[in-house]
């Protein structure tokens, strides 16, 4: 679909349009990711859990570049450590979403018309039928609040989106000559789908979706932590930091909420830009 559109509209200028965003996004994400070992290894002597009860709610200053929170903990250290809490569960959500989504996408795209397709697409619509956030609340009510359980559910709820993108591509590809040729050569269905459809032509879609989902996962973690169902104190996550910082927001201690909120925005936009850039890069290569 997009390609046809590109061919119709796209001048060469549009195709060559900026890939710099991808670079920027990639760098941001890389920095975030590197923050994990830094925080875990405490390379810079930052301890996200150390409390200094004589130095509570300090504004940003030398020694505490982003100030301290209500327990005298260093905000910078917690923002850095929070990257881990925000990203690791996100990876879980993404893995679940991609696994289910790709499988379902192939089922609905390649086996179009069969009973398998009907069953799978009904299941996908079913997942979409219950609003995601409400589903989280049901799960939280039924089981102990755990960010990993929630992220697994988030992965399931994201699967339909992945599946629909994969299915669209698979459906387009199934009619292509090289697939027909593979079929004529007597390759097994698994080989055709796995190698000639998925591996060669669906990686872009999957990579882009993964990037977008990571950004979404960060926001889900944030919202749930705010409601008290996400990452639990004393573990630091951006979500529970903003949630805790909001208590002091009106007293003028802005840094407590603003620092982690800025981290969230940077991460989400970074992932989005990465997705955008990836899509452009793949499109360009195809062109």
């Amino acid at each position, binding site marked *: 679909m997009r390609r046809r559109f590109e061919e119709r509209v796209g001048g060469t200028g549009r195709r060559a349009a900026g890939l710099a965003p991808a670079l920027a996004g990639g760098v941001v994400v890389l920095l975030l990711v590197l923050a994990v070992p830094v925080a875990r290894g405490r390379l810079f002597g930052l301890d996200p859990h150390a*409390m200094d*009860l004589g130095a509570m709610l300090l504004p940003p200053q030398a020694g505490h570049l982003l100030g301290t929170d209500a327990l005298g903990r260093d905000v910078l250290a917690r923002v850095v450590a929070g990257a881990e809490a925000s990203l690791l569960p996100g990876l879980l959500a993404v893995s679940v979403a991609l696994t289910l989504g790709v499988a379902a996408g192939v089922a609905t795209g390649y086996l179009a018309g069969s009973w398998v397709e009907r069953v799978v697409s009904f299941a996908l619509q079913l997942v979409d039928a219950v609003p995601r956030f409400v589903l989280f609340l049901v799960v939280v009510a039924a089981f102990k609040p755990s960010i990993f359980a929630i992220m697994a559910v988030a992965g399931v709820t994201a699967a339909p989106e992945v599946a629909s993108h994969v299915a669209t591509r698979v459906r387009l590809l199934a009619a292509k000559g090289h697939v027909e040729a593979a079929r004529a050569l007597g390759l097994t269905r698994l080989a055709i789908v796995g190698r000639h459809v998925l591996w060669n032509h669906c990686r872009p879609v999957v990579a882009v979706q993964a990037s977008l989902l990571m950004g979404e996962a960060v*926001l889900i973690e944030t919202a749930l932590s705010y409601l008290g169902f996400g990452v639990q104190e004393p573990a630091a996550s951006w979500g529970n930091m903003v949630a*805790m910082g909001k208590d002091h927001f009106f007293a003028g201690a802005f840094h407590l909420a603003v620092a982690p909120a800025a981290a969230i925005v940077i991460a989400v936009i970074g992932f989005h830009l990465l997705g955008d850039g990836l899509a452009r*890069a793949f499109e360009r290569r195809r062109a």
Partner: protein
Amino acid sequence: MRRLVGALVREGALTVGLLLGASLLVFAIVRAAPGDAALALGLGDGRRATASAVEEYLRWLGGALTGDLGVSLRTGRPVADEIRRVGGNTLALAVGALAVTVSVAVPIGAVGALRRGVPAALATLAAYALSALPAFFVGYVAIYVFTRKLDVFPLAFGGDGRMPWLAFVLPMLVLGVANGGVGEVVRHVRTALERVLAEDYVRTARAKGAPVWRHAAAEGLVLPVTAALAAKVPFVLGGAVVVEQVFNWPGLGRLAWQAALDRDYPVIMGLALLAAVAARAAALAASVAQAALAPGARPGTEVDRPLVMRVPWPRPAPTVGRTALVLVAAAQAALAAGCATARPAEAPPVAPGARPVEASAPPPVTVRLPAGWRTLGADELRGLFPHRSETADTLLAAASESGRFVVLVAADPKASLVAFARREGLAGLREALDRHVPGFVQAFRRVDAIEGGLAGRPALYYRFTGVAASAPQRGVGRFAMELIVVPTERVVYTVSLLDLTGDTRFDDPALEALKASVGWGPVATTVGAARGPAAFEGTP
């Protein structure tokens, strides 16, 4: 026409199937919960022994179809009544928010599709940045700016008498702008409009000199907007949970939150069902709109779904496709390596007298004490709360059970609010608090002292002052509270609670003034705490 009816029938059948499936899904999750969910559902009453899951489900579903969703475990009132009581507030919020989303996103999307340049890029980027912000953060900033600083909007639900509808505006704005909807609608409108404007019939219209908009609007604007809005309804409902929390808005979102907190199964199941119905209704409406506006399109054909957001970057940049791939791969590798090699930091030096850490315990936490603080033992803890000795005992029991925590106790008896109140009287205490607390919920005062005295284990002691709200009754009272926080399982023990107003009244207009004076906001029940045994520095 015939095809339209056919499409409607098909959609209707699908809807029935999906709603049945959704109800089964929700029921299955709750049924899988540990503990006796059936009892909690109010279906037990003696028949539990015989009722199978199927029977329970059918009974619940049958009730739901006739409008009987069971009885709330918390309030004891019918769930349907609870929903009816606050449903209107959420409906108003959601509809208003969708309107805000449309009126913000459509112009940005249209400009993005028509113009390429720095302003368009900036507007689009701004829309995405806004979508990337957590809704509650936007809410707090909005409250701070518009209510505290500018005093444009009244805050609490119901307002303070001047134009009560004004109180609706801020939550609607926040929910409309910050639920991720703006970015999504911008994306849809941009892509669809770009596509439509490139269509042959639009080109023909343009060549003829006919009004392009009349041709492009239905397919390029109305369709993508309805499709995006319908897709957004579930997210708006989710966002309502957060936004209602921020604004203390009595609606379905708060009801769901409370139900999740209390494991109020009948309420949360009823709400999930309602949300599924709402989302499905929106999807139905969107497909009807599509069938009516673009009869050429086959029903069920999705409107071109853009994969990612598109920022109209003003100038082309060099190709970095391979670089981007390498970066992603490097990021993945680094993350994997980081996870594989990262170890918790080594334990800080343990202060003399502190207990050695058990092997399974989490890493110890360093707590530095201000000068002059000292540690107290169990007897002294009991002595501190003579009027609530059971509390001290509870704490001690919890300490020995959980294996870790701190009780922080005042080194100076004067610092205890209870002692202070006994000495100075309630009026004196209130005066002192008014003097010290500039006025916000849970302003932290000093942590008065600290101790590893309970088996050498960490816990924290706080005093809070501020305003307490009781959501269901919408009551409010000013209080001072002493808390002992047990770090591990989100356990918070209220040690003493003084109601400084003396008479907590509910639904009292006078309270609106109080709420305004202290900055109204939800009262969190947890605070951070130490993890594991603490190593105290500075303990004499």
